[in-house]
């Protein structure tokens, strides 16, 4: 049985309560850190663990922490990014609602390490019930002396604030999140300055994902080296994967990084294979913004080796034949899925969620959506395909925040790998717009 860093106790009845969580060994990391370690020692362990940010970009967490500016007399903040809104990603939601104290404990340990006395959890506004769960957990932890003034007699004070978002995907982008937290319109900021230097209220700030922060308790308890021993290469530890789509067992799985993609899809321990009578057509491996890959490319690398669930292996081959681990939103498509329709749907999302600050994203996302909509509904022209590629290319890399890239990649990759499907829609508009019609041409199904 593989090691579980986050979900070991997740099925214990009553684990959402303080008492049960504590009985399962909860809050020992707080005791260990506050009583026996200095903040820098905690940072050191996190660095040693090699854990990378789980919010999408995969930036090494310890390194991010060590960049935090520490000017005299200026408060520092830790902000937990619980805005999880990427289509296909639902792991933070699951973690927070089932085992909220894991996040609270991680927040205390991390805030201690960073020297923050007031920390925030910015939760996606639609998840009101999760906000209530977190608030209850915070009240319990406070009553037990793990939050508030002089925690466990260590002299360290911490206040935790849960802030509901307004329901905008863009507020998951860290600087838009900070703007929103300050009570402003959630527009991403121009960088530099980075939050580590000027973040919340212009003070040094670290923004981390729920899952990233939740791992810190385990790292403090077992040491950074023990964490680094899990996983493969520079992809250390475990990762929560939100599996959805045409598989037998959708759900949230904690996997050790380095698991072959094939095992993850077909083994009973995880997705349990494609639904009966159907075949694998494509996978979006890391949430809607990462490039989609056809079955043959997601399972195998160019040299014939198995592709693994790790940051490096998934991005092997660049965008020509690879993709990204992203936030771990693993969406599986069988041969009944229409790639054009799916691409249009993703595009619709990014068009809807663009903040509208910078011209390429504001105008380009809408343009792509409209063209894809036309193609899907039988009004496409042959030149539309190249137009889409061109628009995506001119958005990518030219925007303030990565939402522009996130909107461009799914379109560019779908055309890269499924161009004949787009062409079929354009040349056979009548057939393609029949209910349930899908492209049945040449493609590698597994």
């Amino acid at each position, binding site marked *: 049985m593989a090691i579980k860093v986050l979900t070991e106790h997740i099925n214990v009845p009553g684990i959402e309560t303080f008492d049960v969580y504590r009985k399962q060994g909860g809050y020992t990391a707080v005791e260990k850190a506050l009583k026996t370690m200095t903040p820098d020692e905690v940072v050191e362990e996190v660095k040693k663990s090699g854990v990378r940010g789980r919010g999408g970009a995969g930036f090494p967490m310890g390194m991010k922490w060590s960049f935090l500016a520490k000017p005299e007399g200026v408060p520092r903040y830790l902000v937990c990014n619980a805005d999880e809104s990427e289509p296909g990603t639902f792991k933070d939601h699951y973690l927070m609602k089932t085992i909220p104290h894991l996040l609270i404990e991680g927040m205390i340990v991390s805030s201690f390490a960073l020297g923050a006395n007031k920390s925030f959890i910015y939760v996606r506004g639609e998840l009101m019930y999760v906000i209530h769960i977190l608030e209850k957990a915070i009240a319990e932890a406070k009553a037990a002396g793990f939050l508030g003034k002089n925690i466990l007699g260590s002299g360290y004070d911490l206040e935790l604030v849960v802030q509901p978002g307004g329901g*905008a995907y*863009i507020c998951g982008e860290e600087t838009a999140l900070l703007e929103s937290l300050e009570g402003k*319109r959630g527009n991403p900021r*121009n960088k530099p300055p980075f939050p580590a230097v000027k973040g919340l209220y212009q003070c040094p700030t670290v923004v981390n994902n729920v899952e990233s922060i939740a791992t810190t308790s385990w790292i403090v308890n077992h040491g950074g080296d023990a964490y680094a021993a899990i996983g493969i290469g520079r992809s250390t530890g475990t990762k929560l994967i939100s599996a959805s789509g045409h598989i037998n067992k959708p759900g949230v799985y904690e996997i050790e990084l380095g698991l072959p993609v094939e095992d993850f899809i077909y083994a009973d321990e995880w997705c349990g294979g494609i639904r009966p009578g159907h075949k694998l057509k494509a996978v979006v491996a890391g949430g809607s913004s990462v490039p989609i890959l056809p079955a043959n490319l997601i399972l195998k690398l160019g040299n014939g080796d198995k592709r693994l669930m790790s940051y490096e292996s998934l991005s092997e081959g660049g965008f020509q034949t690879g993709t990204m681990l992203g936030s771990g939103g693993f969406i599986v498509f069988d041969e009944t899925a229409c790639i054009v329709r799916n691409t249009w749907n993703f595009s619709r999302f990014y*068009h*809807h*969620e*663009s*903040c*509208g*600050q*910078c*011209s*390429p994203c*504001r*105008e*380009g*996302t*809408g*343009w792509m959506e*409209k*063209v894809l909509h*036309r193609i899907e509904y039988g009004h496409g022209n042959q030149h539309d395909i190249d*137009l889409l590629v061109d628009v995506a290319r*001119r*958005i990518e*890399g*030219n*925007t*303030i925040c990565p939402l522009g890239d996130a909107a461009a990649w799914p379109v560019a990759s779908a055309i890269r790998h499924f161009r004949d499907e787009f062409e079929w829609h354009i040349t056979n508009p009548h057939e393609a717009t029949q209910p349930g019609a899908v492209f049945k041409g040449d493609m590698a199904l597994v």
Partner: protein
Amino acid sequence: MEDVKPQLFKVTVDGIEVEVEPGTTILQAARKIGPEVAPPAMCYYQPLKGSGGKCRACLVRVAAGSAKDPRPMPKLVASCITPVQDGMVVENTTNPQVLDARKGVVEFLLINHPLDCPVCDQAGECDLQNFAFDHGAANTRYEEERRTFDKHDLGPYVQLHMTRCILCYRCVFTADQITNKRVHGVLNRGDAAEIGTYIEKAIDNDFSGNVIDVCPVGALTDKTYRFKNRVWFTKPVDAHRDCPTCSGKVTLWYRGEEVIRVTARRNEWNEVTEFICNTCRFETKNTSDWVIEGPTKIARGSVISANKYRADLQKPAFGQRLAAAQYKTVDDTRDTSQLGIQQLPPERFNKSLPSATE
């Protein structure tokens, strides 16, 4: 004691070196060299704090980050908000990737912008017109419907045409920074975002008229000047008066003997140097109210600059000349023979155009 002069940074833009103070942005350094290498700016506005970074018109490539760390920057950067480093090497008009991205920005800004220049008061002094002329493609690839907005009335002085807005946020910063009561902001998201005075509250304070001058396009225009004349038939004259509220330094725009418009004065980058009050702008239109200083020098950004749009008189752009001298090819060669000929496929003429005045 010795005078401690701040150490100057050496920056190279398109092969031309310039020395600037630390903290200067790439755009300002390039402007110091001259208009030939200065990147276009559709949202950045020097007098307004916090402006810039949004339109992406000013993207440039940093070929070397600094003398200490000469690695190139991985992406194009917005020159209006990126500070220079000592020894930085910047490519603007000499980099095909920059010119392509810029062409893209023009296209993005125009897809939803009504092409109603013939009835737009801004025509002739419109930053977007100039930007498109200098950097855009001659035809459009956009076949979808253009977006429209509900009408908002901003009171007796300022006319809002939201369809023409490019969301540069300049007017928002203006309302924020030079007027004491904030009533102006951005509502909604993405391409549905619109500027508005919250709940259609008219902007009623002494300096509200300045949003007209900072607007790069015809989204905010002067109601007292609306449809009175084309800007190229008017004569700008610098004048001043003793004003209790503002500096009183303005430009008067004459048609014959009549002052038909009053605006703030602009510098060579088309930026207002001193904001003026509404009384000067809207209520003081008799020559006798003013002390005339003399004809306004129009440096650029207006059709009044001689022959700006005469294709046959256009010199090849500076970048092309430089590129021709230094590089092999550059992607921005404008085929002047095509100018004026709209090469649109016939089916695009059948699309209904948005109504000219919303």
